[in-house]
Each structure stands twice: as structure tokens, then as C-alpha cells.
């Protein structure tokens, strides 16, 4: 049954995880100011419920969900709302955000709250509690978790996959979570299984984290059907479709979601967060972030309040080195380079990687020499070479005909391209152009 355990193509970038793989998680001191963008998840931005001057306690909502695919946002520290306005957003734009001046004298204790005992709740109540807590997928895409846990009535989910691959180089957030909080992962998994009414769960972890594998295996509850599997170290092992292919041998049809093949995939950090929500009664207001890279002086795995600014976080890690060149939110393969040190961390920020001048890709690109390396790398079997040529001529329709929609922007093609052509960027542009045209039509 487990004969697959792999997907085809993909790339093998250096993992570079040794900087922080052995560094225990610790808490970062509260900064002077917190900035909470209203858009921190996939879907509609949250709707504001505070105004400038309001006093908020830690865990108070500052914005509520606006629609089904949306989540509330909570204050991650006690303080005063200083201003609501445009602020640099991790995606490179300026977006509406709530600036909170942190009360330096507050103990930052959580306001006592009636925490429902999860074991007495039914699936609907559990999902509602998760929704209220503003939980999103912590693997990077920040898709609202409650949506994933409530699939349409006509699809049958038979398996939950727990994603412990963390295939992006440098990042060790999930790794440390699994090593230090294996019980939380399992508790979150148990709650999710109850939500979905699923009896089977499979955990997939890349082979380069033996300690995490051991910890998660050791903590598997006796009464649950959870199997733990080690997977090949290969990027993008952690992409949902690849993970499903590796663990179950199922291929998610083009244009469809995992739930169409009876699977829900959740990140280990999301599982641990769900457990924490029911444990502490606090919504999602802080997360574990890896701050790493050769450009940062003291790499660490930190519990960071959502909304903490990049500058404060880097300072807490000893600041940047001389040859720091590029600061990336997320991993180096798919992460977003940041232009401002004032950008806040959001719920979906898995890590902060500071690349040194020596390791950033050169900025000069050469003509495509049709070496075909990108075709060998693309995990969804596209022809990035052709797509790239089409993109440079702005032939969007032909790109669509060549399955651009199946591209998940994993970056394998760009990583492997000897001519240094920014293929993922071109594809993102093309996707944007096509979306815009569809919207106009």
C-alpha cells in the first residue's frame, strides 16, 4: 500500500536547515508596536471592529470574518489602537492595517474566557470554535482552516494527511514543532478527524528530520489510526498534490482540489495550533517562526506575536550581518522578498530568511538555450520552456492552452534554469493578466 512514497520530477536544493534545526523554540520579547493587516488569509479581508484610540487586550478581536471564506483577526498584545491605515504588506503592496501601541506595563496575560471542553463538542461546534479563533493553514498559503474542515456534503473524505515535510530550504518551524510538541500535533489531528468524521490519518515527514519522525511516531495515540511515513527529501514534497501522490498514490485531477480525491491536507503547525486554541482558549495570535540565513547574526526558532514588525524581529535575533542582501518571508523557493523592514509578520509567515550576497541568484539572465532542465524539474509536467517564451511574447491564450492553470508557482523551473530566466514570475504575471481579463469579461 505504501509502495508509492514518491512523486516524479522536482528538485534537490541544499536544505540548509542545520542553522536552526537544533535550536529550541523560545519566546520573543514583546515589541513596542504591533501592526495587524486585515488581509492575512486567502479570501476576503476581515472587517474592522475597532477604531483608533480603543484599548484592546491580548486575544481581543480587532476584525471579524467578512463572509465564509474569511477569518477574524485578534490583537496579539494588549495595548491601544494607534491608527488604522495603509501599511506595507508582506506581499509587497500597501494594505489596510491596525497599528497597536503595545502597553509596556501589561503582563500580556490572556483575558479569562470560557473555554469549551473540546471532547464534549460535536463537529459543527468544533468548526465554529476554530473559525472564531481565526485559524488558518500555517504552511504558508493561510487558507481558512474551518473551510477545509467542512467539505461540501457530496464529497466523502476518507483520509487526513498531515504535512510535516517542510521541503523549503532553511525553514525549521514545523520540524521544531514536531520535535517539541508532538502531543499537540496529535491532539489537533484528533480534533480535525472528529470534525471530518474521518478515521484514518497519515503523517508524512521528510527523511532529513529523524528526530521529528521519532517524536511523532512515539506520540501516536493508541486509539487512533495514524501512520507516520518518511519521505524522500525533495522539493516540493510538501505541496499538497505532491504529498497526496507520494503518500496515497492518488493524482488530484487538474483544476480540482484534494477533497475531490477524498483527502484533506493539514500542516503540522496548523494541527498544533488547533490543539493550542482548545488548550489555552486563545485565538491564533502568535506562531512559530524560523529566523535564519547567513545574513542574520543569531538564527533562531521563535514564538512570535502576529503583527510583529520585521525590524523588531531581526533585532531580537542580533540584527543583520554585513553581507545580508535579501530578506525573504517564507522559504527561499517560494517566499516573498521584502523591501521594508517595517513589514509585519502575518499568520502565514513560516519563516524569515536573510540571504547573504553570496547566495542570492545573480540578477542577469541569458537567452533560453532549451536545455530542458525545467521540464525535468516541473512536478506537474508542464513545459516551462515554452510557457516562458510565450510569456515573453505576452501570448496569454496559448499559455492557457498549455496548462498554465496547473502551475503552482513552486519555483522548481526558476531554480534549475541555467539562463536565470525568472520563469515563476512570468507565470505569475500571466496568471494575473488572465484573471484580470476574465474579471473584465
Amino acid at each position, binding site marked *: 500500500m505504501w509502495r508509492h512514497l514518491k512523486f516524479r520530477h522536482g528538485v534537490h536544493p541544499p536544505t540548509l536547515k542545520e542553522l536552526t534545526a537544533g535550536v529550541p523554540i523560545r519566546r520573543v520579547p514583546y515589541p513596542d508596536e504591533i501592526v495587524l493587516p486585515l488581509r492575512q488569509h486567502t479570501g476576503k479581508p476581515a472587517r474592522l471592529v475597532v477604531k483608533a484610540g480603543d484599548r484592546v487586550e491580548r486575544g481581543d478581536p480587532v476584525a471579524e470574518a467578512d463572509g465564509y471564506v474569511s477569518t477574524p483577526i485578534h490583537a496579539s498584545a494588549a495595548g491601544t489602537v494607534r491608527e488604522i491605515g495603509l501599511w506595507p504588506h508582506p506581499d509587497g503592496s500597501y494594505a489596510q492595517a491596525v497599528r497597536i501601541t503595545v502597553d509596556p506595563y501589561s503582563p500580556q496575560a490572556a483575558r479569562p474566557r470560557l473555554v469549551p471542553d473540546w471532547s464534549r463538542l460535536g463537529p459543527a461546534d468544533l468548526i465554529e470554535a476554530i473559525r472564531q479563533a481565526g485559524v488558518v493553514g500555517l504552511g504558508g498559503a493561510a487558507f481558512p482552516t474551518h473551510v477545509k474542515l467542512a467539505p461540501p456534503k457530496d464529497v466523502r473524505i476518507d483520509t487526513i494527511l498531515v504535512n510535516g515535510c517542510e521541503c523549503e530550504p532553511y525553514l525549521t518551524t514545523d520540524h521544531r514543532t514536531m520535535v517539541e510538541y508532538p502531543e499537540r500535533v496529535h491532539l489537533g489531528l484528533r480534533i480535525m478527524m472528529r470534525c471530518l468524521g474521518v478515521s484514518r490519518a497519515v503523517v508524512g515527514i521528510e527523511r532529513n528530520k529523524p528526530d521529528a519522525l521519532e517524536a511523532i511516531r512515539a506520540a501516536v495515540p493508541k486509539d487512533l489510526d495514524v501512520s507516520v511515513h518518511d519521505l524522500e527529501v525533495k522539493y516540493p514534497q510538501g505541496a499538497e498534490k505532491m504529498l497526496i501522490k507520494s503518500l496515497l498514490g*492518488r493524482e488530484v485531477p487538474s483544476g480540482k482540489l484534494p477533497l475531490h480525491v477524498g483527502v484533506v491536507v493539514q500542516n503540522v503547525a496548523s494541527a498544533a495550533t488547533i490543539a493550542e486554541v482548545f488548550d489555552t482558549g486563545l485565538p491564533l495570535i502568535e506562531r512559530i517562526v524560523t529566523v535564519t540565513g547567513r545574513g542574520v547574526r543569531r538564527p533562531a526558532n521563535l514564538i512570535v506575536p502576529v503583527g510583529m514588525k520585521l525590524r523588531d524581529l531581526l533585532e531580537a535575533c542580533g540584527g543583520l550581518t554585513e553581507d545580508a542582501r535579501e530578506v525573504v518571508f517564507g522559504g527561499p*523557493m517560494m517566499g516573498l522578498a521584502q523591501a521594508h523592514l517595517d513589514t509585519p509578520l502575518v499568520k502565514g509567515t513560516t519563516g524569515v530568511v536573510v540571504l547573504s550576497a553570496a547566495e542570492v541568484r545573480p540578477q542577469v539572465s541569458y537567452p533560453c538555450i532549451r536545455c530542458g532542465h525545467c521540464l525535468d524539474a516541473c512536478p506537474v509536467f508542464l513545459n516551462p520552456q515554452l510557457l516562458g517564451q510565450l510569456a515573453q511574447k505576452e501570448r496569454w491564450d496559448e499559455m492557457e492552452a498549455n496548462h498554465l492553470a496547473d502551475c503552482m508557482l513552486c519555483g522548481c523551473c526558476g531554480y534549475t534554469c541555467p539562463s536565470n530566466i525568472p520563469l515563476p514570475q512570468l507565470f505569475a504575471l500571466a496568471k494575473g493578466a488572465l484573471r484580470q481579463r476574465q474579471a473584465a469579461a
Partner: protein
Amino acid sequence: MSAPSLLVSASPHLGAGDSTPTIMWNVVASLLPIVAVAAWFFGPSALLVTAAATAAAVATERVLGHRGTLGDGSAVITGLLLGLTLPAGLPLWMAVVGGVFGIAIGKLLFGGLGQNVFNPALLGRAFLQASFPVAMTTWPVPAAAGTWWALRGDNFAFPFTSPRVVDALTSASPLGRMKFEQQPTALLDLVLGTTTGSLGETSGLLILLCGGYLALRNYLNWRIPASIFATVAVLAGGLHQLDPRYPGALFMLFSGGLMLGAMYMATDLVTSPVTNRGCWVFGAGVGLLVVVIRIWGGLAEGVMYAILIMNALVPYLNRWTQPRVFGARPVEPAT
């Protein structure tokens, strides 16, 4: 903390390391031993011819090409490869014509590096072959005659004039002798390269080694030579079984330009398919055409034409062998 000037680039922020110039200059480096051996066999003529072809290719790229495209090394490869496909005694002015044509028509006219359809070196050679058929099939004997430093032909023939040929110092190539006189050549001579032929088609073993290095570094797609060798071996072996007058598989593999063609020309990244399945088909096509031309054709050697014809098919092969997109036709879940 001082705010450094940060770079904001698109993801992915890491690269696999091999850049296009790295690949190209590696190919150049791997060609140098072959040039050296050609010089060992054919004396200074080998160096002169190779240098003339390379200089012409580079100069054309410099004059007609975009600014700064010399650094990628591709023009040097074209020049070297062209030089290696020429006979040692060829007048230098002809080598220059081949280099200019290869780069100007074979490459720059299509838009420069990466956009050409035909292998520029082979196109240059095909032009020379069609233009100067006599000079292009006058094969000097290696090493044997005269001293090492003697020229092997009329290299310095005045531009646009015919070379003077000394018949005693030339001989038919092993393929020609086999085809037209049914005289085989010892396999060891073919493997080591102590036969007549163009500069780079003599030592099969050395080319195999140099090309193997590139294949190991993934600078060429090993499937193409593998497919060519397999096709030629199977077809030639089979025909030899049916009729022993036809040359055997090993002779076919190690004679003529097959090694250089399979390792360096057919694998030219730009003019070979981008898909792996396409590479298998491409190689099989080259192998088939080589055998057909060598055995049933009017020419003794067909590697150049086989590759050029398959070059023309590459756009079609790319389309035809495009892999199935993930999830386009989902496999049955294995439960």
C-alpha cells in the same frame, strides 16, 4: 540597526548554480582535448583550420550579434565544432566561410543564441560540403607522411582559389573505403583514431570520454547519444547478420563522424528536443537516418545530414512528446 539596501527579487531566491556560460565554457573545455589529439595526428594544419573556423565564428557573432553575447561562449563552441568536422588540409579561407555562414545564417538570422533551428556548426559544414565538394572530401593521411610540422594540404590557398592537392598524401576515409571498395579498417585504429577523416572524427574513444564528462555534469542529455548508439548498433548489427557485406555495428559506431555527431552535435541543447521522450525519438531518428544514408545512400557518411534533418523535426517532436500534465488524466487511486 542600519537599514541595508535590500534586494527585492522574484522567487525562487536560490539557483541551482550552473549558469549558461558555465555550461558553454565547460563544453569548450571538453572539446580542447579533442582539438589537441587532432593536432597530434594532423599537425599544425589541425590547429590552423580549427582556429580559422573559431575566429570566423566569433568575429561574426561580434559584428552582427547583439552586444555582449560573446561571453556566453556559444560562438566559440560553434567554431570549434565546425573546425573539428573539417579535413586538415582545407584552405583556411573555406573554414572562415563555414564559420561566417554557420553563425550569420544558422544562428543570428533566427535571433541569436537559443532561437536557431539548425545546428550552426553543421549548417556551416553542410554549406561548405555543398559549395566545395572536392576540397571537403580530400582526406590527408594522419601522422604517417612527412614530419609532424608539415602542413597537410594547401591550408594557405589564396582566398577564392582552389587548393593544390597532392594525391599521394591523401586517402579515402574508412567509411568510403568500406562502402565503395569493401575494405574494412581495423577497429583498434578507429577507436584510437589513427585513420583518415576530418579532424574530430578520428578518435572515437576520446570523444566518448569527453562527451561522457559533459553527460555526467548534465550538460548534455545522455539519452540522445544512448539512443543513437542503440539504434545504429541494432540496425547495423541486424543488417550485418542478414548480409555480411554490410559493415558491422562496431565499425558503424566508431567510424566517421558518428561519435562526434552523437556526443556533441546531436546533443546541442538549442537544437535538440526539450523533452526526454523527444530525445529518445530524436536519437533514434538520427541513428536510423545515419544507417539508411550510409548503407543505401549515395554518400559514404550521413551523420551531418541525419542530424540536420532531425533538427528540422525538433519543434514537432517537442510538441508531440510533451508529457501528460499532472492530474490531466488521473491514475486510479491505489487503495
